[in-house]
């Protein structure tokens, strides 16, 4: 169904939702900055953006989970004060959360019952609700087996249950947060059918997602959010997948292109292979594939960037290569120190990885990269505390550890340069520099790095980029996962693009263009660069 076949929006259509000037700050982070949102009644409006772009916060404000610092909201043309989810529900707003709000041990019917019981006596309440639900299910085509426990229902059915829950409470405006994140392709199709039917009934739908094809397939209009603000807001027929991708992941940066000609000259043949991953496959607990036949090779002296909208398997790839995730199929060959082969029966572990010269800067620096409650010098040896240079036997050579930390801080310009300071007291950028110092300073053979400059100030970004290049120039290999396309373009010799748990394409940096990358990121074209 192409955009031309869709109804054109009447100019005088009443706005179901109008949010103006929404600001929301969490501590140092400006989650929403002067956001405006206009949604016409009976339409499907998509809200797209990377992780941390602010879309979930915006919808949480609409649903009353958070209160905006400033701004106003109008529902059906009337000003609305939404202080809690009860207010939102009373105004006809319903929300289907990304992480289902269900009690798994209860039956489906009891889950709908909870909080909106028509009677204090459960059997009576159940029969009344059942009648209403059956009518609703017939009306909307949503089928849910009401008498099974939620834990026995497949995810698609649980999601339909969530939608039913919202509808039963009279929702005419339905917010769906990343609805297809956990669905199989078949379930996704089914969901689309359901959503279209709901739209025909006059329900207004707000779809938060980062899957661009779905936006094009389903929505009437779209807002693209980035770093807390709205960067693009238009009807679907005026845009396309590639434009959305580019709007999502950032401005083009010209700088990166200048030295592109010098980089990435066919490296493959010349330099030794350090890491080879073959046909990695991994499904999560729900059976959804997160790594689908992923293979890659890292050579000495190159930076390989992994581009793509996050959630397409990049995190899982990093975890697998660092030894934190054991794939169900595939193998890994490490040629950093001798040759070691790893199979699913006996996969890599983080300490073995480190001993083989593989360092890892994790995407989540606060929960994984550092221990916030520890002092800086204690976090600065995380993962390396067993090394001989930090003490030959059982005792830790704290003097050596502190001295090393001071050296790290000096070299990587971590401020304040105080090894005794608690990690939680450092700013995000300095925390990141500390983690990078710990992992990169020992000159690892392979550095796996995820989102190295997330939340880092501009000056530090350049510094970090310089250090990554230095590592490459010294003969190491860097695997760079980043949702910032400019970062990928500025640093990489080779770019892999991940989409839908697969590697959708691979290109030398000289051949990269925003257009081609955008196509690969949105999955609209699978491409293999000719060597």
């Amino acid at each position, binding site marked *: 169904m192409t955009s031309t076949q869709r109804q054109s929006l009447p100019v005088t259509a009443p706005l179901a939702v109008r949010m103006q000037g929404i600001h929301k700050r969490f501590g140092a982070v400006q989650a929403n900055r002067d956001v405006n949102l206009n949604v016409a009644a009976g339409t499907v409006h998509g809200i797209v953006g990377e992780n941390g772009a602010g879309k979930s916060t915006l919808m949480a404000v609409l649903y009353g989970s958070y209160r905006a610092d400033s701004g106003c909201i109008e529902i059906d043309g009337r000003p609305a004060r939404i202080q809690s989810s009860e207010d939102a529900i009373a105004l006809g707003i319903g929300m289907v959360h990304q992480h289902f709000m269900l009690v798994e041990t209860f039956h489906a019917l009891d889950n709908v019952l909870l909080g909106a019981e028509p009677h204090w006596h459960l059997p009576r309440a159940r029969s009344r609700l059942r009648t209403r639900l059956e009518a609703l299910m017939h009306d909307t085509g949503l089928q849910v087996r009401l008498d099974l426990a939620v834990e026995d229902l497949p995810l698609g059915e649980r999601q339909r249950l969530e939608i039913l829950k919202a509808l039963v409470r009279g929702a005419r405006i339905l917010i769906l947060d990343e609805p297809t994140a956990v669905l199989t392709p078949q379930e996704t199709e089914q969901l689309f059918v359901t959503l279209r039917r709901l739209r025909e009934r006059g329900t207004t739908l707000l779809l938060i997602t980062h899957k661009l094809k779905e936006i094009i397939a389903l929505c009437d209009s779209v807002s693209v959010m980035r770093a807390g603000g709205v960067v693009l807001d238009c009807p679907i027929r005026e845009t396309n997948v590639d434009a959305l991708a580019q709007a999502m992941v950032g401005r083009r940066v010209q700088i990166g292109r200048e030295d592109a000609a010098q980089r990435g000259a066919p490296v493959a043949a010349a330099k030794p292979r350090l890491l080879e991953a073959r046909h990695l496959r991994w499904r999560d607990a729900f059976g959804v594939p997160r790594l689908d036949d992923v293979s890659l090779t890292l050579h000495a002296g190159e930076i390989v960037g992994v581009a793509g909208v996050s959630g397409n398997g990049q995190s899982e790839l990093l975890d697998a290569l*660092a030894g934190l995730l054991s794939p169900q199929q595939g193998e890994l060959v490490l040629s950093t120190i001798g040759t070691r082969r790893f199979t699913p029966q006996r996969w890599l572990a983080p300490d073995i990885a480190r001993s083989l010269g593989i360092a890892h800067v994790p995407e989540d620096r606060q929960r994984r990269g550092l221990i916030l409650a520890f002092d800086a010098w*204690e976090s600065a040896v995380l993962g390396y505390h067993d090394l001989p240079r930090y003490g030959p036997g059982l005792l830790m050579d704290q003097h050596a550890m502190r001295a090393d930390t001071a050296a790290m801080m000096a070299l990587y310009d971590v401020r304040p340069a105080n090894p005794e300071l608690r990690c939680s007291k450092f700013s995000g950028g300095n925390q990141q520099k500390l983690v990078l110092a710990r992992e990169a300073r020992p000159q690892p053979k392979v550095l796996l790095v995820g989102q190295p400059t997330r939340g880092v100030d501009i000056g530090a970004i350049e510094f970090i980029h310089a250090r990554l290049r230095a590592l490459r120039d010294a003969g190491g290999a860097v695997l760079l996962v980043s949702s910032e396309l400019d970062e990928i373009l500025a640093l990489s010799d080779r770019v892999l693009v991940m989409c839908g748990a697969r590697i959708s394409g691979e290109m030398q940096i000289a051949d990269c263009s925003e257009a081609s990358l955008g196509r690969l990121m949105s999955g609209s074209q699978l491409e293999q660069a000719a060597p």
Partner: protein
Amino acid sequence: MQPLGHGAGVSQPLELPRWLDLFVLPAFNLTLALLACGVLVMIVGHSPAQVLVLLIKGAFGSRIGLSYTLYYATTFVFTGLAVAVAYHAGLFNIGGEGQAMLGGLGTALAALALGDTFPAWVVLPAMLAASMLAGVAWAAVPAALQAWRGSHIVITTIMFNFLASALLAFVLIDVLKEPGNMTIESRSFGPGAKLPGVHETLAWLGIDWPRSPLNLSLLLAVFAAFGVYVLLWKTKAGYALRAVGHAPEAARYAGIRPRAQVMWAMAVSGALAGLVGMNEVAGVHGRLLLDYVVGAGFAGIAVSLIGRNHPFGIALAALLFGALYQGGAELAFEIAGFSRDMVFTLQGLIVLFCGAMAQVAAPTLARIWSAWQRRREARAAAAQS
């Protein structure tokens, strides 16, 4: 696994500076507990001031009183350290009672087997090893169940406390009891199994000291406290343990295996609790009894809470509790109708104010602190301009 107090689930937007957190807050909570106890003392018709004076005199006012205080404190150091080590790994070990019982059993078995035939320098180390190993064994099962089967360690350790007392009763009554003896106890240990008392050691050094249960386990306790400090903050093993307790995800990232840490933290914890056997069974009674532990494990929880899970704080808190137990016993002599149970009540109040309600005062303290900070900064700014 619910880490004890590691901010799990409780948001703390205002962070207290370390010295406030480690010293002022516990002192404040302790004062509250003492005040509540003072109220109780008044309700039962005594004067808190009089009680306090008599308590201090009883605990520290004489050499024998001091000896008793230190003897009690020794046991509390062991059980307090046991709770603390487990805490730093993110576990709540309530099984100190049971592990201490097993420790005594281990001590006794080694003593009975070897005490008659071997000299002290062979038997005593064997008893020491036995007491620790027995404690380790008793802690290892709940630890393994937690690590591999996910069984909540709090519940399993409580169950194991009851199992320990049943086991101890069985061994004493059916195996070790001397026929014809009405009291439930084993026979006395041989001469090789007697841990010298402090009064004996001091006499050997030429110092006259009154006879008391205080024995060389005191040195063991000091060594254990120092050892735990070194272990937790100066060794790589301790680093890994604390990492798991604070941030299991980061520990995994670092290649530290959480299961191994759980096992080994509980092993150390059990060994420490087992050392109670050396103090009570080997050092004092010279035979195995039924009730040498009573309440020591729970007192250890209180001691660890006030001592903020740090060996130095635990040593001080153990001394405090030793003083309370000894002073309480004296009070029971001096004041008609006063019993040791007042001390148990205070113990419970301490767990209440320093444990369960420990953070109730924290936000208020933090507010006072930041208000005072702001006023200081404003004054400094005014002085500059």
